[in-house]
């Protein structure tokens, strides 16, 4: 992964949200050492990114870390032929409703191997996400000799003042769902962390 980031740095760093989404699985892994290694590899991209790409990258990272859903791969059976697999993979990316997709597959007699499903994340995953985001940002700022990297100033100023991206087109129902998710993530993100829990309001 570090080699990929190194050799494709220009392409990946120019579109940080895309690069972050592609590395999401490893950065949010349940094992802490995997999250740390992934953060160290991807931090290189944050440091190498042009100034114009930084705000979008930071916003995408905060958006991702505060998301309340996760995409999981569910194994459903044997893998069809390679050509069919490609087609279905493309279809799966476009389809939002996995259940409907499954019904169509069953109707046409096709069996797919893995199905992506969106589900709510649990407390542990929220903790992992927050930890992964914090690790990535801190790795991006770390420099040699126990110091900070030369790119740290421009990153820190953005990180410490994140902006919530809001859509004005949201209707009331959608806004209510988003609000509920934001509550859920915020509560789980900060509730289970040790040390300060006893200091919180009763």
């Amino acid at each position, binding site marked *: 992964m570090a080699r990929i980031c190194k050799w494709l740095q220009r392409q990946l760093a120019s579109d940080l949200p895309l690069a972050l989404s592609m590395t999401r699985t490893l950065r949010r892994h349940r094992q802490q050492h995997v999250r740390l290694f992934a953060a160290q590899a991807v931090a290189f991209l944050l440091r190498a990114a042009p100034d114009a790409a930084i705000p979008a990258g930071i916003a995408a990272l905060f958006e991702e870390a505060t998301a309340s859903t996760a995409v999981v791969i569910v194994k459903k059976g044997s893998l069809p032929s390679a050509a069919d697999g490609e087609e279905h993979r493309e279809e799966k990316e476009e389809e939002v409703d996995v259940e409907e997709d499954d019904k169509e597959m069953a109707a046409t007699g096709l069996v797919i191997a893995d199905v992506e499903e969106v589900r709510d994340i649990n407390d542990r995953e929220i903790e992992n996400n927050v930890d992964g985001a914090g*690790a990535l940002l801190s790795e991006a700022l770390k420099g040699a000799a126990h110091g900070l990297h030369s790119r740290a100033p421009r990153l820190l100023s953005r990180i410490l003042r*994140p902006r919530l991206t809001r859509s004005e087109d949201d209707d009331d129902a959608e806004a209510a769902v988003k609000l509920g998710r934001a509550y859920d993530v915020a509560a789980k993100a900060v509730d289970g962390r040790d040390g300060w829990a006893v200091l919180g309001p009763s």
Partner: protein
Amino acid sequence: MGCARPVIGCHFTRETRVQIAFNDAASAIHCSLVDGLAKHTRRGNCALMWRQLLHASSKAALIGAESPGSDDEDDSESDDNGGEHDEEAVPEDPAYAVARAAHAAGVVAGAVECYGGARVEDYEPIFSLLTHKLLPALEVSRTAAAAGELGERGDAAAGLLVRRCRLTSSKPVLKAPTVSALEARIR
């Protein structure tokens, strides 16, 4: 190191509640970030982190009539470092401002707490932040809470701010006048 539970209530407007929820989650990320940085760096090499952290915290602690953009000296410093202009608008809802100040104090307290204060470059700016920014924020939040502007959960936000101010000031070097003044104000 971590953060206390979020303060979210039905009293707030929907937009404010979303802001507070996002701020809670962002605060947890900031705590993790500052913890990682503080453990990596050594005293003498993390001045930049402290400068940016205190700058962001002092802006976050501005409640009331003051505008975050009015801090000219710090803004110019931020522009030199980051090449960006602060476009953040002053939030209208005092409840959000109080919660934001509480979280900012929490991040600073976490940085002070790391290795028992071994990464603190200078305590003077921290106590300056406490006395000049966070204590006025406490006053404003207490006044607003007394006037019923914050609601029940807003009172909890004010309480959280008090606890975090106390934690920031009490570790690890106690400056008696500052702490006693703080205790007197929050009592």
